[in-house]
């Protein structure tokens, strides 16, 4: 009753404090959401129905856009246990205002990249100057089946739209990409490798590694991508610190001002029987109410911010795991507690006689 009445007595100040805490919470959550974009790319890249990914070794000089696809394919398929080597020529292409990685694949390999029901409109690749896009890119660029798109000085026809979640946002026949890039012979940026029996993955991996190529299981490659996000964790850590510190400062300033303003009231409360602990609890409860309001506002701002970001940048991903909401609430709660601690202790220790004489 009293904590709520007290914070409602200064509506504008309370609203600003709640908003400040909310902005801290939303800042943290939206940033966490945006970092999910990197995870989404890693997830897509490794969702192909294969067991291994084979890349040129890091010290290998790759010319003309990639490995010689036919030669490496034959070599990989000679490894015992390997069922199929799937070449991919990956190349950047600007679509819907952003640079996308085109997946140049053999049309017959489409089945490894998507289940039949993932094709939601049109058909898969057959060959020639055509492309398949995923639904996210189609939505962002307003692309439709049958539409033509001019790129690399050529006119491509969009022949199909796949549900988002497939490895690339744009697929083209590998020979078409090679031709468009004026490469001599078929080239591959990397290979997916499928083995006959999952029990043979380790042996196949070892045999391919002996050929001087970098080879990863899908899980390993996911981890490689994930480990390249270390700096992002640092950024998130910094934002956590800044958001928590802002929360701390706002609460400290607000609650400290409230305590100084109400010096005489605290004296009266002690006079009518409030203990130090009750005064301490009263101040913390007021700060807690501001924090609770800030958390709710922060969640609403997060929803609004996420909606706005995805509206402005439809190709971005902003997934916020529920547990992160709990982290954000805990962050605001800890910042609030620390910020309110000093003013609450000051109020609790306040000399009642001095307080009653306070003008």
């Amino acid at each position, binding site marked *: 009753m009293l904590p709520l009445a007290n914070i409602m*007595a200064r509506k504008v100040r309370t609203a600003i404090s709640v908003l400040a805490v909310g902005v801290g919470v939303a800042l943290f959550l939206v940033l966490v959401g945006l970092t999910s974009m990197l995870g989404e790319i890693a997830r897509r890249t490794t969702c192909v129905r294969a067991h291994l990914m084979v890349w040129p070794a890091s010290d290998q000089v790759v010319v003309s856009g990639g490995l010689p696809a036919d030669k490496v394919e034959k070599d990989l398929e000679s490894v015992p246990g390997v069922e199929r080597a799937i070449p991919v020529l990956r190349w950047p292409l600007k679509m819907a205002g952003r640079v996308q990685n085109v997946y140049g694949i053999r049309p017959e390999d489409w089945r490894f990249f998507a289940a039949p029901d993932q094709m939601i409109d049109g058909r898969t690749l057959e060959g020639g100057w055509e492309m398949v896009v995923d639904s996210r890119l189609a939505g962002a660029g307003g692309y439709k089946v049958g539409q033509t798109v001019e790129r690399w000085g050529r006119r491509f026809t969009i022949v199909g739209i796949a549900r988002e979640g497939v490895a690339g946002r744009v697929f083209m026949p590998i020979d078409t990409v090679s031709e468009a890039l004026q490469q001599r012979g078929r080239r591959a940026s990397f290979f997916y490798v499928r083995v006959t029996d999952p029990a043979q993955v380790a042996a196949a991996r070892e045999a391919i590694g002996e050929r001087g190529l970098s080879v990863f299981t899908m899980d390993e490659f996911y981890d490689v991508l994930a480990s390249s996000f270390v700096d992002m964790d640092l950024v998130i850590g910094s934002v956590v610190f800044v958001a928590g510190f802002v929360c701390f400062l706002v609460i400290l300033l607000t609650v400290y001002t409230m305590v100084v303003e109400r010096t005489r009231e605290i004296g009266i409360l002690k006079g009518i029987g409030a203990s130090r602990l009750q005064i301490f609890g009263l101040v913390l409860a007021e700060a807690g109410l501001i924090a609770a309001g800030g958390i709710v506002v922060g969640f609403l701002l997060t929803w609004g911010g996420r909606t706005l970001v995805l509206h402005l940048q439809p190709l971005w991903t902003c997934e916020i795991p529920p547990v992160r909401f709990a982290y954000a609430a805990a962050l605001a709660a800890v910042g609030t507690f620390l910020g309110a601690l000093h003013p609450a202790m000051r109020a609790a220790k306040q000399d*009642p006689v001095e307080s009653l004489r306070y003008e």
Partner: protein
Amino acid sequence: MDAILETRGLTKVYRTDGVATPALRGVDLAVAGGEFVSIMGPSGCGKSTLLYLAGLLATPTEGTVILAGTDAGGLSDGERTRLRRAHIGFVFQRFNLLPTLSAEENVALPLRLRRMAVGDAPREMLRAVGLEEKRRRRPNQLSVGEQQRGAIARALVTRPAVLLADEPTGNLDSEASDRVMNLVSRLHAETGQAIVLISHNEQVAARADRLVRMRDGRLTSE
């Protein structure tokens, strides 16, 4: 009659920047249960200090306070708070009610602080002081006299053995002052609580069973 409140050799010296200012110099005062005592004296003579020490809001430099048979001298802050809660009701001179609460919520506050059942007690106390109709009003919607009546209701809602009032009519005009003092006298007669009241006003002080005068931190006459 046994004293419900007693001070023995009560001395208080305030120190500011190394300068000692004596406010009380060995005050002995005993208030019997149900007795109404007025303390009069010029400004700065130590009346309020005596009241705050007697109400266990401050600790004496020397001497002790015995409240309801308990010597408060060696008690911790928490024990003093509990003793005060159990036996003392306070009325201050001004800005007595918490501005963010209604009159009824203000009166309920001592009960809540003591974790006692609230029930109809605040409303009944407000009826007793003539404020039942205005119980939902905030202090700034009440006259100063009404605020003091609300403060008296709040001080008495826990049925304390001793009511300590620090110039409760100090900010009131004569009409409002009379109404408040009539109320104090009536409640004293009805409840039998001991009252220690500080006042500058001879007429107000004269309502008490006993008048005590103070000067320069000492009791000068009874």
